[in-house]
């Protein structure tokens, strides 16, 4: 075993919130060894960020470390009070990389200047010398032409490049520990893979220990040597990465691993965790996860379990590992074995179906100052009645704009959109528009911003009913609201509450209920799960799938990650820079991806399995591989139902590959 360089023990962090004292961290402990990568996994509200922020004294003003110790080189930080003391640690010994590169850089200073300042401040280096070092750092984090880039401002950098700059600032003082707080959550999947690789490279070069904070098990599988799982302010399980992924012991970890959308089998429900994660206001007795665990034991409701040893390196805080629970464990094992292998449902046949939505040569241009650019270029596709059609692409690929254009909340600059045979991208008469709005609804990405905070749930869900006069009397309206609430799995009495009393997943379900209440036929779901907690995602996916089967909806699913849409989509279209580059039936697309960008996307999506993730090569899509100057590309069908954007030589190559 390597040398232990940092040890946090029984840390308790409390917050004062509106006159109440809340415990955010309830006695969490962690060890960190030289040169290793530790991942702390947990969902929002589990306290993972607060826990690590307490290591460098960056808790919010109303929070404090109540008890416990944080030792590094024999010094206990938890007694530090003043900023001056903390500056000994912050940046020098422990540095932090935050989630959003947008907010962690100063927009009015050049990036080089920001790095140079850190070096000059910490080591008192001469300006010219510090500049040289800063340029060297920029080169080290993989920024091309660092001399030029040194003089540029943050807004001239893309998101991924900005995150590289943030990393450069963090490693400027040669910290021993680098804490990365969701470093790639705000980035595209393809960029994410590059950043993860960069951090790995730097870790080796500088011999740092890295703590990752993330909710993404795919990322964890990619980077972590050891994993700690956090739930409700406590570490519930920790061990080596393969122990956690292959032999999880805590029911929460097990459920989390099972509910990954990647593991879904088409035509069947995903394994999902019931309920919502507790927040700080909830009083916790016994095992915090017990109320959401259908297999909980009586003792879980009574006593908090201690850590039990599963192996030398693997501990879990669950009563299941207690000797007395052996009998119950074998009972559980039998039950899970009974859940026999389930077969994948065959893909649906849409060859004779009639298109519900047709998009023909859709173009959307935006004016940016005087320049005009195309967010969507010449996009054509059909969505058949009853299918789930997914549009996948990175941010800026025009997928959301396409969705909004179909929703008629965004202008179009060219092409046609037909809904049920009627052209809709024109000025519609009042009753036509009413008809359209009744039939087409949208589910939004961010449940935090998509609900009116000042209205009760009852009004939010009834909004459409009011608008379309879809009820005869007050009683019928109430019944419809209750039915909508029920179908998304929420209690009827919640209708008198305000949105802020709900968790993210519950809010998203209220948003779905709002769209459902008007009984639409076609639903556009704009990244409905990307803002949700991992344990909630499976719930929402199952809900959308169930509603589709019950009510015969047609979905258009917008997503940035192929793995998520795999098991729910019938067909998938991949978008890149405003253009659909490939469109195929789901199985076909995953078996035979043709366009290089599709390949890059498939490759980049992290898989929650350390064996696969570890030796993965990162594919970067470079548009210059195409030679489109001489031979113009066009949209063509290489195989029935499989379309790709390519020119003649490429098509010839694709065809031979398919044979």
């Amino acid at each position: 075993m390597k040398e232990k360089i940092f040890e946090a023990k029984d840390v308790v962090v409390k917050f004062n919130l509106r006159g109440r004292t809340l415990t955010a961290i309830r006695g969490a402990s962690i060890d960190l060894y030289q040169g290793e990568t530790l991942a702390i996994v947990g969902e929002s509200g589990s306290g993972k960020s607060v826990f690590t922020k307490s290591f460098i004294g960056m808790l919010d003003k109303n929070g404090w470390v109540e008890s416990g110790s944080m030792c590094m080189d024999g010094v206990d930080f938890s007694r530090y009070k003043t900023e001056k003391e903390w500056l000994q640690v912050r940046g020098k010994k422990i540095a932090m990389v935050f989630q959003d590169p947008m907010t962690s850089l100063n927009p009015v200073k050049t990036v080089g200047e920001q790095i140079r300042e850190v070096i000059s401040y910490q080591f008192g280096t001469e300006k010219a010398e510090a500049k040289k070092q800063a340029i060297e750092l920029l080169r080290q984090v993989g920024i091309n032409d660092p001399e030029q880039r040194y003089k540029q401002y943050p807004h001239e950098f893309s998101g991924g490049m900005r995150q590289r700059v943030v990393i450069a600032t963090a490693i400027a003082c040669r910290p021993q520990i680098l804490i990365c707080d969701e470093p790639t959550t705000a980035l595209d999947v393809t960029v994410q893979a590059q950043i993860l690789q960069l951090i790995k490279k730097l870790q080796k070069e500088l011999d740092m220990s890295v703590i990752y904070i993330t909710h993404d098990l795919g990322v964890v599988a990619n980077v972590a040597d050891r994993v700690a799982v956090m739930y409700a302010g406590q570490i519930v399980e920790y061990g080596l990465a393969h122990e956690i992924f292959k032999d999880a012991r805590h029911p929460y970890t097990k459920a989390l691993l099972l509910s990954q959308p990647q593991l879904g089998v088409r035509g069947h429900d995903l394994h999902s965790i019931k309920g919502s994660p507790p927040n700080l206001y909830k009083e916790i007795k016994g095992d915090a996860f017990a109320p959401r665990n259908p297999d909980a034991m009586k003792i879980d409701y009574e006593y908090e379990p201690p850590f039990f040893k599963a192996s030398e390196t693997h501990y879990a805080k669950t009563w299941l590992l207690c000797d007395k629970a052996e009998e119950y464990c074998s009972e559980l094992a039998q039950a899970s074995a009974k859940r026999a292998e389930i077969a994948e449902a065959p893909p649906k046949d849409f060859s004779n179906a009639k298109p519900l939505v047709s998009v023909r040569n859709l173009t959307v241009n935006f004016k940016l100052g005087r320049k005009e650019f195309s967010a969507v270029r010449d996009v054509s596709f059909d969505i058949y009645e009853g299918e789930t059609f997914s549009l996948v692409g990175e941010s800026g690929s025009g997928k959301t704009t396409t969705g909004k254009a179909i929703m008629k909340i965004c202008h179009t600059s060219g092409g046609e959109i037909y809904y049920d045979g009627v052209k809709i991208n024109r000025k519609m008469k009042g009753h036509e528009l009413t008809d359209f709005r009744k039939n087409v609804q949208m589910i939004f990405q961010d449940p935090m911003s998509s609900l009116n905070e000042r209205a009760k749930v009852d009004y939010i869900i009834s909004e459409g009913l009011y608008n379309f006069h879809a009820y005869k009397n007050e009683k019928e309206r109430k019944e419809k609201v209750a039915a909508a609430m029920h179908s998304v799995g929420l209690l009827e009495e919640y209708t008198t509450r305000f949105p802020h009393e709900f968790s993210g997943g519950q809010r998203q379900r209220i948003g779905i209920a709002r769209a459902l209440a008007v009984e639409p036929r076609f639903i556009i779901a704009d990244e409905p799960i990307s803002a949700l907690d991992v344990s909630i995602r499976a719930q929402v996916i199952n809900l959308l799938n169930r509603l589709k089967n019950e009510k015969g909806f047609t979905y258009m699913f917008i997503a940035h990650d192929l793995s998520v849409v795999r098991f729910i989509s019938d067909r998938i279209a991949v978008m890149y820079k405003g253009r659909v580059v490939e469109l195929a039936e789901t199985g076909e697309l995953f078996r035979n991806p043709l366009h290089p960008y599709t390949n890059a996307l498939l490759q980049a999506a992290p898989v929650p399995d350390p064996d696969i993730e570890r030796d993965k090569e990162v594919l970067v899509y470079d548009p210059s591989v195409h030679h489109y100057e001489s031979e113009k590309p066009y949209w063509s069908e290489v195989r029935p139902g499989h379309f790709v954007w390519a020119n003649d030589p490429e098509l010839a190559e694709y065809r031979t590959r398919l044979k």
Partner: protein
Amino acid sequence: METMKTPEICDLPQGLFTRAEFHEELSEETGFSNYSYWRSTFRTFFKSNVVKVVVILMLLLVAYTIIYPMVTDRDPYTVALSAREWNLPPSQEHPFGTDGVGRDIWARVWFGTRTSLLLSLAVAVFQVGIGVIVGAIWGFYRKLDTLMFAIYNTLTNVPSTIYLVLIAYIMKPSILTIIIALVSTGWISEARWFRSRILALREADYNVASVCLKTPPKRIISRNVVPYLVSLIIMDAALTIPSSIGSEVFLSFIGVGLPQDLCTLGNLVNQGRSAFLVYPYQMICPTLILCFITISFYIIGNKFADASDPRNHV
């Protein structure tokens, strides 16, 4: 990490290690906060001691201006015929002294404060009311931009003093004239301020969702937008009060305000000015009250603005 001591585990009855009943509804309980926007706003507002003192003093002052004219038998308009009653310094009987014709300044100040407060309240209500309505329409119908900006530029580029003087000259000096004069210059800035607030809100997801449901703009404004801005509207009204009292004083001071014989703070200050060098208290006393009211409203308005920001609700 230590494990629990063995005897304790031994003591646990075997019966506890069996399946517990699972209640799906319980799993939905996240534990919810008793957060309420208005309660938190007021709690944050009254946390500051300055606010507590100012609010109490303001309440006392307002109560006094209401009660005093009702209970006193002193008439602020009675002129003393005897010259011995003229220009008396402050005393037990006349706390602020008397003016050049023997009228009791204490009584005049409180009658004047009442008039001025009522007037500024009316201005605040009308100015903010019109501003909010126009601003909401302006924010929602982008086609109005050209027209509204033309009006805005015209009205704001010419100093408002000129209109005030003009309107005051054209119409008969009366309380209504002053209200019309002040509201007609103030509404456009309110509307513009409110429009920018609406623009920031109208692109929010929940408003787009309402558009998708074909909610009419009228209801989007009344249910989705205005409730978010109520605290800002209150703050804005509170800040309009001192500025309209100030404008009234200014207009009266240059002689185009309310009729000379009416008791208002503006007239009192104006009349005190003429005797300032000989009898300074005749101007200083009403000015002190004026300053107190103005400053208090500014403090209340600003502190309320801070308190209404959810980021300060800690």
